[in-house]
């Protein structure tokens, strides 16, 4: 039961959404953009988040947000495309595999890719393939649509300017069908929050890695990639160097102790490096 009363708006153009946001913001209604709604609904009903929200703007009916397909050299994914849909698409196998193990199927029918990577839940596993493929985000603001490289805007989380939203995500075609690994370990069972999710991508120059569940945010680290791409070091040397180079302490919570996550990191990295070739 959601006890907050709030306005519900459903614009059909990106420009109208921005206009509505500005107007509602001016009225002091702390508006939020609403895509699949899984997070807003579940957090609101337990008063855990969005407590000041008096208006939501559903951007799911904006045509650009629902686009998916090739455009020139890029594969374009609308921000409102659901994880369940991405699970069915063959264009980007790494993303497809990640999306198939985020939440249960009923939720995946609702959760959108933009919602997953912008939400408050820390794992955001759909972002790992985007970090590895240097994706570009198309962000709508009052100035129109702006193309932003993901690395410019992602610093532990996506730092969107107030009142802006992701319309589309663009991935270079050349990255889509590279050799990859996508491995996920939960506390138990196939579905659940990750104790650790590892994504690896084999580019021509090197092997790229991104992680979720290891620290309190998903990340791709150049320092760690450098360690893992070393030809000289043994696996044990790489592992201890990786642990030293982590951007934050290893998570330690009810889903997995930090010692256990480190244990899982060891075998997932070992398996991943066996599959991907360090040159």
């Amino acid at each position, binding site marked *: *039961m*959601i*006890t*907050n009363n709030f306005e519900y708006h459903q614009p059909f153009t990106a420009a109208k959404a921005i206009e509505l946001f500005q107007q509602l913001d001016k009225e002091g209604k702390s508006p939020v953009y609403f895509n699949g709604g899984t997070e807003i609904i*579940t957090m609101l*009903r*337990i*008063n855990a988040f969005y407590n000041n929200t008096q208006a939501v703007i559903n951007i799911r009916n904006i045509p650009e947000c629902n686009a998916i397909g090739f455009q020139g050299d890029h594969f374009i994914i609308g921000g409102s495309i659901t994880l369940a849909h991405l699970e069915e698409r063959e264009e980007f196998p790494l993303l497809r595999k990640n999306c198939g193990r985020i939440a*249960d199927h009923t939720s995946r029918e609702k959760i959108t890719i933009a919602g997953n990577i912008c939400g408050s839940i820390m794992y955001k596993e759909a972002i790992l393939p985007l970090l590895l493929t240097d994706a570009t985000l198309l962000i709508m603001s009052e100035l129109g649509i702006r193309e932003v490289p993901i690395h410019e805007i992602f610093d532990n989380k996506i730092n969107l300017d107030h009142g802006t939203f992701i319309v589309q995500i663009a991935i270079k075609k050349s990255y889509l069908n590279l050799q990859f690994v996508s491995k996920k*370990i939960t*506390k*138990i*069972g*196939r*579905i*659940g*929050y990750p*104790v650790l999710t590892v994504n690896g991508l084999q580019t021509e120059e090197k092997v790229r890695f991104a992680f979720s569940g290891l620290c309190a945010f998903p990340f791709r680290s150049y320092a760690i990639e450098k360690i893992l791409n070393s030809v000289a070091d043994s696996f044990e040397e790489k592992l201890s160097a990786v642990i030293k180079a982590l951007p934050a302490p290893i998570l330690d919570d*009810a*889903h*997995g*102790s930090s*010692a*256990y996550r480190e*244990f*899982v990191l060891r*075998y997932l990295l070992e398996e991943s490096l066996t599959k991907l070739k360090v040159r």
Partner: protein
Amino acid sequence: MIGKSVPRKESENKVTGTAKYTDDFTTAGLLYAKILTSPHAHANITSIDSTKAEKLPGVRTIITGQDYPILTGSAIEDRPILAIDKIRYFGEPIAIVVADSEYEAQEACKYIDVRYELLPVIHTVHEALAGIKPFIHENLLQYYQVKKMAPNPKQNTANHIKIRKGNIDKGRKLSEVTVNVDVSLPPSDHAAMETRSVRAEIVANGQVHIHSSSQAPFAIKQNICKYFMLNESDVIVHCPLVGGGFGGKAAVQLELLAYVASKAVGGRLVSLTNTREDDFVTSPVHIGMSANVKLGATKTGKFKMCEIKFLFDAGAYVDESSDITTTAATNCTGPYNIDHVWCDSLCVYTNHTYATSFRGYGHGELTFAIERAIDTLANKLQIDSIELRKLNAIKTGDTTPTQAPLTKSNIGNTLKCIQRVKELIDWKQGEIIHLSDRIVRAKGISCLWKTSLSPTDATSGAIITFNQDGSINLHVGLVEIGQGTKTVLAQILAESMKVDISKIHVKMEVDTSVSPNHWKTVASTGIYMVGNAVLDAAENAKKQLKVTASYALRCSPDQLEVGNSQIYVKHDPKRFINLGTAAFGYKYSNGNAIGGEVIGQGSFIMHHLTEIDSHTGKGIGGPEWTVGAQAVEVELDRKTFSYKIKKAISVIDAGKILNPKAARGQVTGAMSMGLSWASREGFIYDDNGKVENNQFRTYKTFIFDEQPEYIVEFISTPQLDAPYGARPLGEHGIIGMPAALANSLSKAAGVSLNQLPLFPETIWKHARGEAIDYK
């Protein structure tokens, strides 16, 4: 009709979504209640200020503990309906808001200003026994004891059960080998699909109507009368279909709150339904346990003595925990014959959500303890663990830990169950098979037994009425909680009346003002108790029908028989009168009439049960012991410690199987529940005693694609005093699953796994020697 897989009477309504549950109701003017619950696990309440909340739109009234300073409890009256002065668990009800809408009621809860003085939290049974101050119940000795208890406030214990069978010193001397095993399992939840829901109304003539998703409508009636000083005739409880009980809905909690909520708004109809979060932590849960088992045997494996200590985590209030503590003690050995048995079973208060009955009622817990000890002993003795179980299996002529004699009727054939499981799991292929350098397949075994600790005078009734078309209506006080008992009762009646099942209509809803009494829909006793009452009622109706028919057919009632919707002359079946006609009297050709409506009445009462002696435990605690054997096959990755449950097997001696598919469904469902419990269920508490996993987001249960292959078979040793020889089987599938899973994984991982739940991380910790008791 007996022995046929008759589909459930209510299944069409359920699968089409038209079946109505308690919360599937609305009407103009219905008010809604919401509970403000405690954010702390142990605290004094220094003040409650509702002024702000009372002024909010839609709010009708706010009730706090001071408004109803009563204490409740089925064994000891220790629980206020709303906290008074003190909080004893995270999620404890503090206040109720009644409002025009559900959201207004919930919103108002946020504005009730409660001030607390935090107290040290008692996290474990061990901390509780150590007597850290302040105690959870300072006035424990002043509480009214409904049942005889042995409370000790300084150790935070409510009861202490002692079993003293044989001579323990002698048993110790005779034991050439002894194992000493500690096990533990945390409190967890029933996680029924339907959260608890209730609706209360006090109508103009003073009658109280309670609609509840409950397994115990008659207990609700008695409780409301007792605590609020009402006449029994003024309280009417209605139970529609219930969406899963598992013991959790046998406790009376929300009904008392809904009654005071309705009373506070002039008797208007008030609805109160738990959110999933409240259902997890505010309403009572599945008990936790720590135990120590010392099991002694000769070198050849003959069990000589058993010394067990159970510490049951009752949580903040006792409710059913004291009886669970008793049942675990009185059946502590499992289905094994041991001459010298000592058991001390303690019911311990902690700052956890209070516990109530859960499928298996202490037997799954005691079985985990004894069966882990047996596998440990087998390992030490280097004896095959199935042979060890066969050697010690209990049988007719033996006695239970309470010295109750076992007869050819009250115990089944344990040995046969073990033997069949051995074949089904392909034991001779090997207990441990290395599939690769990483993957190990392993098999684990557990036996089980269960009796019901009902009151020694528990009763049931049945009423049969007729329709003119010859069909028959059956009224009983048992609740349909998804277990399918009402369909099987219809089969029993159809068999007795010799009519087709389609001619029997069972009333699904229970209405305590007209339904015959039934103790509670618990303990797998429905068929035994109510089934016997139905047979009694059928005989009673047949007798009446024959008298009426004797006028029409001009012969003695003794010459008549009932069958095929007729009453006919035995030696000349062509002379008959239709059942539907005879059931309403017989009219002569001149218009004169005789007979009258036939209403069959039947009843049942437990017999030959005795109370348990408080010094030795001696007594007859239950009417029968259903026995069985179970096995689990797992595949463990020794590198990652992740595992798959491949196969789960049950062979249960359930006497005559009345409905094979329903029986298989009950046993399979219970096995699935047991595997879920053992592999992943358990509350996680933070340092302040707050439950961290009070949502399905974080409290994981088995999902569909994780189910193993289930094999269920039955052995049929009839129980002579039960309908057609059927033994109870509703709970039994769950009992050995935790032990069988732990036994298989212990073999696969090569370490003793004595703590639940068995997450891969748990196994990894054991393998590293870092395992700790649950908090």
